[in-house]
């Protein structure tokens, strides 16, 4: 029972950076833009967060710095993809490479210096309930914030006029433009939201989860977040389910190494990546489910006519 409870809690924590990054990318893709550079934006967030922390700034400011870094990085992509109408695949890859380089440069002085991580909350009474307390009420504030953001994104996309506009732009930018929506401006905002969320996800890794700066510390989580959006079939609820699935896979793998399974550790480490592929295959086979909520204009540059 104790093992189950601790693995449950560890899964929720491991899923948190993925939830941030994938929810952000979901909004970007819903507007019809494909930003492959999540890995770069997460790394930028992780590095700038650590940089601000070691500059002696309070934690909340360090998080804000990470969010800004992610948004600024996404703006580089936005200018290319939206203003210059370049191939979005190439622009996203450029961002992934650039973000990796910039983060390594920013973080070069901070390697392996432990960060004073954001503490788990201790709620009076609630946190002390046996089992339930540990499973639900002893996380750091960002874990809860991830769920708040899930609510905000779902509400925004499906319950607000702006969300409807954003989805309409993702379906058919030409018709949305014809009835007066500013396609490019709304897509810019979506891209920057995606960048901010990726930056926050990266900061969660460097300021809470690990918590220290290591070069390339995202270890493919930016790409897994991208896979999660495909897995979710562009629905917010399934982003969360997917993130738990991969969080759980990471924790199982670590647990396997901890109890000393007689399998080389590299094989266990490969599990989350292989699981990503397996899940993608299962989900993609069903073409109908994939196309239901798929933003039709995804990845296609838009140029207003007239």
């Amino acid at each position, binding site marked *: 029972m104790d093992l189950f409870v601790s693995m449950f809690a560890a899964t929720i924590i491991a899923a948190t950076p993925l939830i941030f990054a994938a929810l952000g990318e979901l909004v970007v893709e819903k507007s019809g833009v494909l930003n*492959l550079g999540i890995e*770069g934006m997460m790394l930028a967030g992780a590095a700038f967060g650590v940089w601000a922390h070691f500059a002696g700034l309070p934690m909340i400011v360090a998080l804000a710095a990470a969010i800004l870094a992610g948004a600024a990085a996404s703006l*580089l992509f936005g*200018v*290319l993809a939206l203003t*210059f*109408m*370049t*191939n979005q*695949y*190439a*622009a996203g*890859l*450029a*961002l992934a*490479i*650039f*973000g*990796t*380089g*910039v983060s*390594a*440069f920013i973080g*070069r002085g901070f390697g392996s210096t432990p960060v004073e991580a954001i503490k788990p909350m201790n709620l009076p009474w609630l946190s002390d309930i046996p089992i339930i307390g540990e499973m639900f009420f002893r996380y750091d504030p960002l874990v809860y914030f991830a769920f708040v953001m899930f609510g905000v994104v779902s509400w925004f996309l499906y319950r607000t006029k702006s969300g409807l506009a954003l989805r309409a732009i993702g379906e058919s930018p030409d018709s949305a433009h014809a009835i007066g929506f500013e396609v490019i401006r709304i897509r810019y905002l979506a891209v920057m939201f995606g960048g901010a969320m990726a930056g926050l996800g990266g900061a969660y890794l460097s300021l809470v989860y690990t918590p220290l700066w290591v*070069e390339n510390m995202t*270890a*493919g989580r930016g*790409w897994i977040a*991208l*896979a999660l959006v*495909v897995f979710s079939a562009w629905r917010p609820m399934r982003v969360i389910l997917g993130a738990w699935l991969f969080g759980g896979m990471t924790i199982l793998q670590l647990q396997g190494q901890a109890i000393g399974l007689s399998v*080389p550790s*590299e*094989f266990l*480490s*490969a599990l989350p*990546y*292989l699981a*990503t*592929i397996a899940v*993608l*295959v299962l989900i*993609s*086979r069903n*073409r109908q489910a*994939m196309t239901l909520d798929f933003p039709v204009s995804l990845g296609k540059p838009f*140029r207003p006519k007239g």
Partner: protein
Amino acid sequence: MLFKIEARAEPSREMAIAAPLIATGLTVVLSSLFFLSLGYNPAMTLYTFFIEPLTTMNGISEWLLKASPLILIACGLSVGFRANVWNIGAEGQLIMGAIAATGVGLFAPWQESPLLLPSMVVAGVLAGGAWAAIPAFLKDRMNTNEILVTLMLTYVAALILSYLVHGPWRDPDGFNFPQTALLPYNGMFEVFDYSYRLNTSIFFTIAVVVITWLFTERSFMGYKMSVGGVAPAAARFAGFNASTSVWIGLLASGAAAGLAGVMEATGPLGQLSPQISPGYGFAAIIVAFIGRLHAFGIVLGGLLLSLLYLGGEAVQMSLGLPSSIALIFQGLLLFFLLASNFLVNFRIRRTDVRTR
């Protein structure tokens, strides 16, 4: 006075040549500002970065040695990219090629045979191709996104490499370093001159450039694949098969990356270690775009990126700047290149407000 963006009737040939030059120029300008902000003399640093590496014979040998795998991989990638098949896991296919070649080189029973090196090359090409066949199969049969699968398999390949060099393939006389024993002499490409590392494997790259040019510019299959990339609907109406594009795009790039892996293991390194590739598989994506997915353009792109690697090492050694600078420049170069490509398809005209 206003500016107006107009689509060109057809892509500008002059701009197609000017765009990479503009992008390189902007990268140089921005990197000088960057060096200046770090407190280095930009002229000195730029000299160290871009000119000094090419002033010695050894520098030129290293330049070509690094350009060769970049050009080779980018040629393979361009075949797929033209058809909208996005293999971004060339790094993993390179690793698998290096593993297969080293495996044959170290453990094949025909150690003394002159056929050792050819069999290593074949093994590496097949391994790279096989690693890319997985995403090709999943894309073709299961409709699975090839970007994500190729990338995930890169992490898996890196873990397999790590397992082998830390475990069963570790050199017993290697002082516990994670690396294999050195390959036998007849399992390595011959160098042109014993003072330098440039070796005969560069002929493979030259051959692949020519083959890529023939395939993409002169063959009907290459034409069909390009149509499928630019106008998928038109390609369908014409009866061109999309799944053939997927298979050819991925197998060609996988095989090329596998061969690059063989060249690294059997050339400058002579063994397998976790540092088999300094990110060639990812940098080759940039090379393919700098070359505008054209074989001869890729040669120039490869030479440019190789210089970025050399320059990065040079400023690291002589000025103590971190190696991540090379990555930053790679990203910048690609950003500027994509932005200046805009000028190929669009023109910016000044329009006088009063005349409207």
